């Protein structure tokens, strides 16, 4: 009997080891260090608040890993599923490992303060991306790479107003993310009309579709819908079709469905913060800093957006979105 128990334990160990090996043995592009054109050999870690498998953050990941290959540096990408405590722990782990540089998205700056300051105190350069622009320099980060959510929201509002929208829904898909709230605020300012926020779950597009449909059916005076992510954007397209509403649609961020809808004229535009560059640029910036002490932006945020994808350029962007880099 003792042997049998031992066998289970041994089998577990083998399984774990095998799984562990397949993780390190099958190198993702990040571990192709040196295979690219550059040969710097630095070791950078990217810690985001995104969820694994999220279409938006997967593009960021691709950007960072591609930059790693191009620059010949090792890039390790970590996500924390929107949990600030977890993100702080992941940053601490990277600091323990003495990485050469850190890239951090700061959706919840307060929670990350201690960890980021520990990194900078240890001389590890930090670049913040995506959100947390206001606090970036305060925490000692080298630079911030991202989109100003207020500016982007106002831009979206102005464009929708120009298209004749007077009463709009702003669909928030991630409770707890301040950046999304800022977009809706900016949107309300830019639109100048009435804006109602609607809470849905990004992980449940079908549910979101039903919620948006119900909202449109119950209030026919709504003539515009702004979604803040492409997954819900695609759900909103269907919802508008089902509800028989004539509301005009726009979204933040892209995927294949969204660009197709814009090309087909079912959606006005997408606000593109070009998150691929939010993954790519910090790796280049960190490499430049480590190799040549270059800093970019001089404390001002490096803005990756907003770019607008409209019917004119949708087809070209479509190809790139399908390839997962836009």
């Amino acid at each position, binding site marked *: *009997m*003792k042997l*049998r*128990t031992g066998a*289970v*334990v041994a089998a*577990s*160990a083998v*399984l*774990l*080891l095998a*799984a*562990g090996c397949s*993780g*390190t043995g099958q190198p*993702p592009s*990040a571990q192709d260090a040196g295979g690219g054109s550059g040969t710097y050999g630095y070791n950078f870690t990217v810690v985001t608040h995104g969820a*694994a*498998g999220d279409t938006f953050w997967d593009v960021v990941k691709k950007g960072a890993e591609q930059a790693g290959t191009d620059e010949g540096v090792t890039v*390790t*990408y*970590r*996500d924390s599923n*929107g*949990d*600030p*405590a*977890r993100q*702080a*722990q*992941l940053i*601490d*782990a*990277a600091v*323990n*490992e003495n990485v050469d540089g850190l890239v951090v998205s700061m959706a*919840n*700056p*307060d*929670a990350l*303060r*201690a960890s980021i300051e520990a990194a900078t105190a240890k001389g590890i350069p930090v670049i913040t991306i995506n959100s947390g622009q206001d606090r970036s320099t305060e925490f000692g980060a080298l630079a911030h790479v991202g989109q100003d959510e207020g500016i982007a929201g106002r831009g979206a509002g102005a464009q929708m107003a120009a298209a004749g929208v007077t009463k709009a829904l702003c669909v928030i898909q*991630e*409770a*707890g*993310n*301040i950046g999304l*709230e800022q977009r809706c605020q900016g949107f309300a300012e830019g639109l100048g009309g009435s804006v109602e926020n609607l*809470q849905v779950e990004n992980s449940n597009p079908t549910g979101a579709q039903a919620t948006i449909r119900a909202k449109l059916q119950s209030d026919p005076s709504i003539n515009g819908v702004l979604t803040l992510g492409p997954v819900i954007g695609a759900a909103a397209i269907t919802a508008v079709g089902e509800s028989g509403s004539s509301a005009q649609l726009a979204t933040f961020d892209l995927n294949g469905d969204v660009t197709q809808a814009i090309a087909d004229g079912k959606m006005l535009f997408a606000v593109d913060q070009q998150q691929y560059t939010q993954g790519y640029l910090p790796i280049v910036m960190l490499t430049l800093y480590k190799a040549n002490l270059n800093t970019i932006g001089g404390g001002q945020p490096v803005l990756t957006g907003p770019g607008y994808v409209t019917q004119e350029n949708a087809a070209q962007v479509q190809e790139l979105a399908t390839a997962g880099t836009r």
Partner: protein
Amino acid sequence: MTTTLNPTPPPSAPPAADERVARVGLLRRLVLRPEIGSLIGAVILFVLFAVSSTQFYSLAGISNWLDPASLFGIMAVAVAMLMIGGHFDLSAGVLTGTAGLATAVMTTQWGLNIWVALLVSLVLCLGIGFVNGYLVTRTGLPSFIITLATFLMLQGLNLAVTKLITGTVSVGGMSQVPYFDTVRPLFASRISLFGVDFKIQILWWVLVVAIGAWVLAKTRFGNWTFAVGGDPVASRNIGVPAARTTITLFMGVGACAWLVGSLKLMEQTSVQTSQGFGEELIYIVAAVIGGCLLTGGYGSVIGAAIGALIFGMTSQGIVYAGLDSDWFKFFLGAMLLLAVLANQYVRRYAERSGR
């Protein structure tokens, strides 16, 4: 703990009392402990991760994975005791968010003294635990359903009330609250050992585990918990105050949720409305890995602590091992499966050798 389940010693003992039987008895007694499977698993995991990264077993590395382990571990104690008492609490994760949000709103928005706010939110959490327990005992509905309802309501309240009061989805600025400095040492200080900082929450965890283990093993209340979880009707018939025990166990979850919520709030100085969402499953996982039966009546607090340790080691060990984060959830699942299989194996072995 397990002696309450098996009040009679091995019946084979008196006639054939040679040293062979004695040895089997000892092994069996060891293996019968609910936490033994998880302990083996934890040791294996530690070795595996230590082999793949030297950082993992460095002091800084240990401090790093004790961080998630302690936060989950505190909740796992209360959840394990509740599970031994035969119930679930799906609202446990979100309740940690409620605790933090309540304290943060009362201090930053209403200017309430931070100590008073902490006390009020403790009362709030205990109250929610009481309501859960009261509803479960009064209606006789499965705790799964009752606490699922609480879970959803709290999730909605956390978001709606916070937005109503503050206008945003996260409350920050705790560090500017008067007397924050008097609270911080208790919840968010660091203890430096050999130049490495350990968070004070680890001590809280040890304390909660010690209290939980003592209550379960040494007190009348602990016996009641096992009895109520094993057979509520029979226990009531022999005079165990079943309803009171169940309600107290739910309030224990409330108290721990308050502690974890406060620890997180003081550490991060901000709290978002989505905090804790989904963590209830991790507490249950920790309790189950630690040998608690989903059907109640069996389990241990020490085991749940080891379960939380396994979770902490895995969540950070994957990072140190340099595995692609896309694999994280798969690993967690595999770990859970292996731990539960090992537990089951050990238990079957124990049962068979008992005959």
